[in-house]
């Protein structure tokens, strides 16, 4: 085990985590096959250069009317593990509406659909790794994992980085949400520091006066040379 691996211990969730019930019949039971460094090949097609529409990073302007809810700016930097910015990489996000309902045929929560909110957006980081979205604050919602289970308010993020090993799907949470304590997805990450790094930070300097509150969320992708195991399979 490298120092890096030791450092990372507990910073990623396990595949099998029974408190999150869906892992029980979906997590592989056999050990993962470890790919040695000599088989590393980082060259891989990277999805991210498809043209991005002008409004793709503004989830409040995708319909004729405005969505209900609290407007928020979500912005931050995408870095690698050496602290270097990751420029020109695709950032996608998706979320439920302010009432806690996804615009999705399988979301059966009784909260109302907002006809002016679809909940999906995307952008590309700039030369310094910065990204920015305008959206509305998502609501909490119940789910069927256990009795009286509620997901804390969260926004899903998907990033590619510059190789297949840097692919990341994660969730952003909001500061001081009492539901995080009871959420098995959030709690699946053993290391407290790693959990807290998924919590966005309220940032007054990011707010737009008379318009929207600001939350900062920095994202760290795996580095290019940080572990002997990374690379393309």
């Amino acid at each position, binding site marked *: 085990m490298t120092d890096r691996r*030791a450092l990372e211990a507990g910073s990623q969730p396990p595949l099998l985590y029974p408190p999150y019930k869906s892992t029980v019949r979906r997590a592989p039971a*056999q050990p993962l096959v470890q790919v040695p460094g000599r088989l590393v*090949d980082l060259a891989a097609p990277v*999805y991210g250069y498809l043209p991005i529409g002008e409004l793709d990073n503004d989830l409040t302007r995708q319909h004729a009317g405005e969505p209900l809810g609290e407007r928020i700016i979500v912005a931050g930097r995408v870095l690698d*593990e050496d602290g270097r910015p990751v420029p020109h990489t695709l950032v996608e996000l*998706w979320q439920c509406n302010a009432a806690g309902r996804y*615009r999705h045929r399988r979301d059966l929560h009784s909260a109302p659909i907002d006809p002016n909110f679809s909940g999906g957006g995307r952008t590309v980081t700039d030369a310094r790794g910065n990204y920015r979205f305008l959206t509305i604050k998502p609501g909490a919602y119940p789910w069927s994992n256990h009795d009286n289970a509620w997901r804390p308010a969260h926004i899903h993020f998907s990033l590619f980085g510059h190789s*297949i090993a840097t692919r990341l799907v994660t*969730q952003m949470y909001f500061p001081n949400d009492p539901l995080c304590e009871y959420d098995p997805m959030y709690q699946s990450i053993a290391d407290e520091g790693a959990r807290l790094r998924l919590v966005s930070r309220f940032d007054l300097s990011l707010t737009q006066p008379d318009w929207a509150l600001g939350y900062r969320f920095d994202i760290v992708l795996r580095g290019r040379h940080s572990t002997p195991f990374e690379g393309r399979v």
Partner: protein
Amino acid sequence: MSNPAPAIVASASQTVGPFFHVGPARSDHLGRMAGADTPGEAMRLRVRVLDGDGVPVNDALVEVWQADAAGACPPQPAAGQSPPSFSGFGRLATNDDGWCTFETIRPGAESGAGGVDQAAHFTVCLFMRGLLRHLYTRIYFAGDPALETDPLLGIVPEARRRTLLAHPGADGATWEFTVRLQGDGETAFFDL
């Protein structure tokens, strides 16, 4: 954290959840990976995902990455440039029966690290509700003589290598691959 390492640690992964269709899989155009003008042998890749009970997974997000017909990673244009007709990347959600179908061209065999030839393959990234981290695997072509010497297949325990094979359908242009998350014939997944 007790270890004062200079570097920072990668953000934790979280599940894609069941509702990603409103975001990354909003459109199905990424199932058509190749156009009529793409050099190579047209093929259809059908992927099915089954859970530990053999039940079709109807909410998986399947990403595939492949070389072009010559075995090269397709050139990646700079940001802002028009996408090529073939990018080597595909992404689809599984349907109610756990299947998704990519229209593409057969990948060529790549030269791998150290000049060792690899067998033709697709690399797969798999996301779904119940996966707190995504899974990596590979799809090879059953009957390909190059399987014998593929370096990555060579590190997979022999009894599990067959779990990485796609099999031809009746029309000769369709290849089918089943992902089994657990149990008999559990697919081999890789840790990068």
